[in-house]
């Protein structure tokens, strides 16, 4: 007698269902032909896509031209471009406080500086990590895993881990205390909190970008390096003349990818700082979320208008990325 394995036991109900639906599907195939079956296979995915991605995308534009606090479109008044002009109503564009929607411009400014600093530091550290992981190392997959570990953690977990470390009785102050320095309440200081948001998002995502750059490094033909070694080329020169130029397409994709993700920064920062102290770490996604849902004076139309502006930035970035990808592909084929 053979005992059935667990997986075959699990498959029993699945197989029963399959046997039941097989006959009607065969009849469907007879009625519609093979082309009809293609539509049948595609339908569920396209239906879900249509309802939950494409439809929202379209009605977002309608939303952004309506006012009021109601969520159902039928209960909202058409007000044309008023939400957009409200977003752009400023006395002085360099001073967010002079704008009617000062929170929006504060969020834009914060997001801008966050993106600039986070992406440049991200690329630098990820490139260094990838170069190091590309060397001849003992237990290389272990080291690769080390840097990859935080990537899988949930944003809430990341936010809470660092909130705990940056506490007054936290690990960071403990470290400073060991060196005889006074503890400090990091998350009540505007500048330190902003720096912390950059540091934490670096910690959480750097391994992901390092991994992609590493894949790019490993795609560079080894014989180039052997040739350089035979010519006695200095390592620094090898890096600037071989590694960097050949890595450039890959690196550009990583830069754009990092930009796209960075513009949307929300989860871990929201848990870590809640946008505070004050509005010093209020970023665009949080502005949209709070304007649309959370605040007492919610204004879904205004949130929709802001999200469309952000979507515009993302579309431009994505088109750049696709352009680079296409160029890299055609280069590879030649």
């Amino acid at each position, binding site marked *: 007698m053979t005992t059935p394995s667990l997986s075959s036991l699990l498959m029993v109900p699945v197989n029963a269902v*399959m046997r039941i639906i*097989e006959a009607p*599907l065969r009849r469907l195939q007879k009625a519609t032909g093979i082309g009809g*079956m*293609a*539509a049948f*296979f595609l339908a*569920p*995915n396209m239906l*879900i*896509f249509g309802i939950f*991605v*494409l439809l*929202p*995308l379209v009605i977002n534009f309608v939303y952004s031209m309506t006012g009021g606090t109601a*969520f159902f479109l039928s209960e909202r008044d058409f007000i044309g471009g008023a939400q957009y002009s409200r977003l752009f109503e400023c006395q002085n564009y360099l001073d967010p406080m002079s704008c009617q929607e000062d929170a929006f411009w504060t969020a834009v400014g914060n997001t801008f500086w966050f993106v600039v600093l986070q992406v440049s530091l991200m690329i630098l550290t990820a490139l260094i*990590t990838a170069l190091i992981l590309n060397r*001849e*190392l*003992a237990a290389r*997959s272990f*080291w*690769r895993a*080390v*840097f*990859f570990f*935080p990537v*899988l*953690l*949930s*944003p*809430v*977990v990341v936010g*809470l*881990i*660092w*909130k*705990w*470390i940056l506490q*007054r*009785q936290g690990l960071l102050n403990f470290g400073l205390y*060991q060196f005889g320095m006074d*503890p400090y309440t990091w998350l009540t200081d505007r500048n330190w909190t902003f720096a912390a948001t950059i540091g934490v998002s670096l910690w959480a995502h750097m391994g992901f970008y390092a*991994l*992609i750059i590493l*894949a790019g490094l490993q795609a560079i033909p080894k014989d180039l390096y052997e040739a350089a070694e035979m010519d006695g080329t200095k390592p620094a020169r090898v890096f600037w003349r071989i590694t960097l130029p050949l890595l450039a397409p890959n690196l550009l994709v990583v830069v754009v*990818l990092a930009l796209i993700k960075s513009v*949307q920064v929300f989860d871990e920062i929201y848990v870590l700082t*809640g946008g505070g102290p004050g509005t010093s770490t209020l970023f*665009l*996604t949080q502005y949209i*979320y709070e304007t649309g*849902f959370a605040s007492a004076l919610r204004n*879904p139309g205004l*949130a*929709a208008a802001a*999200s*469309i502006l952000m*979507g515009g930035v993302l579309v431009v970035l*994505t088109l750049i990325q696709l352009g680079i990808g296409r160029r890299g592909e055609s280069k590879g084929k030649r």
Partner: protein
Amino acid sequence: MGNVARFILRRRGAHGSGKGWHWTDVFTWVWLIGGLIIMFGPAVWLVFSSLKTPAALAEFPPSILPYVTSQATVEGYDKPLMLYNATMPDGSTRVLAEVRRIGLVAQMVDPNAPGEIVKVNINDRSPVRTMSFATNNYTEPFVHFDFLRYLWNSVFVTVVATLITLVVNSMAAFALSKYEFKGRSLAMLVILATLMVPLSVIMVPLYSIISTLGLFNSLWGVILPTVATPTGVFILRQYMLTIPDELLDAARMDKASEWQIYWRIVLPLTAPALAVLAIFSVVWRWNDFLWPLIVLSRRELYTLQVGLSIYSGELNVQWHFILAMTVVTMIPVVLVFIFLQRFITTGIAGTGLK
């Protein structure tokens, strides 16, 4: 031993000449060891902290491991007294229980002979500490708060969303890789275009659609918008393209229906790609935060992520519970990391998608 050290410290140019350490070798090891501490340190600190009592958590400077100050019930005193190692004037040390403190002098008694009060300068005593794991940090949130419910909600969302993702995406990938039909490239373009539509751009109208469908405050409202992932269709389609069409034609000769071809031939052959997508999907859905935060407003429906963030944002944060629940939330992801990390890293390196 020497061989091991040489293997671990292998470095550039070490094959040929016995050149000394190049600065890049030093830098490499500083970066790697520093990375090890920075990447794992915070999580390890979280785990240690989660086992401490509230009193130990409030301490500064904190101890690394979870210690508690020992207490003893002493005859003649109602409350348990704190135990201290006190240094006597003659240099010997005794374990004493503190009765009260007046200025710099502590009045202490010997727990075994509580009659006589000993006066000790507070600088001459240190608390008796024993290691103790506050496991009720873990049990109480499950018993007295709704965390068991949140855990169940998270598991439900993760499992159901992953199963639907696998079925729906593989069907679409099958159609897009094995059939010629009008509008195929349009469908492919639409799917790829949605890669650039993140949740933050469509959350307001998506919310209104969910409400219209009656899915607000329902776990299905969390699940459905996430299951038609463009990434999933993309990964599976790339893989199915490598399955030879002759295999399908042969099955058709044997009167297999299209559904049978999909279910009995193509799906089993796509297993490796399905596994990668399943791992991705589990991590994505387990970690989802913003969308569940919008859709779920009733406490009993929260997922772990939402519950954690709401509790940690409350005014008097009970950190000992929050830390323990953060560890619980981290466990599935750590398991995935330990056992399946290889699949994910090759998946990311191959597609550039997260």
